[in-house]
């Protein structure tokens, strides 16, 4: 994983609107109202990505919190080369390591104690099956290195293009494809012995 936010110099956004530039200036000045505004616009996307990446609602919330708290400092490196949402996701990627590790540890402990929390649902069978599959994949993701995990979640679960993923992770598209290939291979191996009915 890259150390900081590295954006490949792909085509910059044509013209950042005046509003957006103002917003960025306010963010750099750590204006809480501006952070609130960005939060309201993008928190769902960031939360969805965080949940998919860490596989744990509480850890995902912590990651979302960290993304928006560190946003003003991170904005100093923002050059309008990608959308704000993509930039937020890249911040999440940069801060994910610790959260993924703690969520993985928690999951391992929970499964040892067989305390996996269960939700209640109106449509039990289908939802239960979906939950099982999602949880199976999350556990398989725990075995991947963070770079491959991030790439798989961004490419396959979030269905982003390799170019977008390259912007977010700051590595060339070729590297993205290689990481994805290795991730899928490992996940297939990981899922095969566990296969569901």
């Amino acid at each position: 994983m890259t150390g900081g936010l590295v954006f490949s110099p792909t085509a910059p956004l044509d013209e950042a609107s005046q509003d957006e530039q103002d917003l960025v200036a306010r963010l750099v000045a750590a204006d809480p109202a501006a952070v609130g505004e960005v939060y309201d616009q993008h928190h769902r996307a960031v939360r969805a990505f965080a949940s998919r990446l860490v596989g744990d609602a509480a850890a995902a919330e912590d990651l979302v919190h960290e993304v928006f708290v560190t946003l003003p400092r991170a904005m100093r490196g923002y050059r309008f080369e990608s959308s704000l949402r993509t930039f937020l996701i890249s911040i999440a990627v940069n801060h994910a390591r610790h959260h993924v590790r703690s969520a993985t540890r928690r999951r391992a402990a929970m499964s040892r104690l067989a305390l996996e929390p269960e939700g209640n649902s109106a449509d039990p069978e289908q939802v239960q099956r979906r939950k099982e599959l999602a949880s199976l994949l999350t556990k398989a993701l725990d075995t991947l290195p963070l770079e491959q995990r991030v790439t798989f979640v961004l490419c396959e679960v979030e269905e982003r293009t390799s170019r977008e993923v390259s912007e977010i992770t700051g590595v060339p598209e070729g590297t993205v494809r290689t990481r994805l290939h290795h991730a899928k291979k490992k996940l297939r191996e990981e899922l095969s012995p566990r296969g569901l009915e």
Partner: protein
Amino acid sequence: MTDDLLKAATRALHEETADDGADGRFTRARVMASLHQGKVKRRTRLAFILPVAACLAAGTAFGAATGRLPAMLHAISEVVSYGRKPAEPKRSSPQPAPAQKPAPAAKQVPPPLAETAVAPTPAAAQAKPSGAKAEPALSAAKPTPAPSSSAAFQDADGDLYRLAHEAHFDAHDYGRALAGWDAYLRSAPNGRFATEARYNRAICLLRLGRDSEARLALEPFASGRMGYRQTEARQLLDELSR
């Protein structure tokens, strides 16, 4: 088969996390509280560093203007070396005595180490007012302004408290309320309403059927350590142990 399974699992994870229904208000309030906290910390740091820097600059300027700067520097170095001596008490070959006489100023300046070590930290100064009056939880919904340096920070914490209170007492959504009380206590562990929040958290655990956790959370109240709702807590514990 595995390919299908991987695809199905990927789709399941996508759908499972597509919209978890969380409106993110708690996290938003946490973000705001953290930003305010950061601002307050920066200000406090500045308020501490500026006077120290000003004193240093003024002292240096005074020394330079009166020609006492070398003597002052010498005195400071004497003090520093005097302060260091106890750290290495058992040397086989003790340091030779300084060749020149210490400047008279050196004798007048006491070693500053002990003073700085016991200086109260801002956190200690802001410690929770002990024995907070036991107020009913409902009345705490409308917090009155407390004597504090940062009204904005109070507001951010107040928001967290209000959200948790609303989820608990208006919506009766105890899962959300529990998350809310946790968020408030994380943000303001020594806040004005921390005691009430802890009690309400215990009630949420009870409502959610997490008896053992509830018991642990009620213990300090029942024992009277918290000075709040002792009788109720004791009754609840009695009920739980039946």
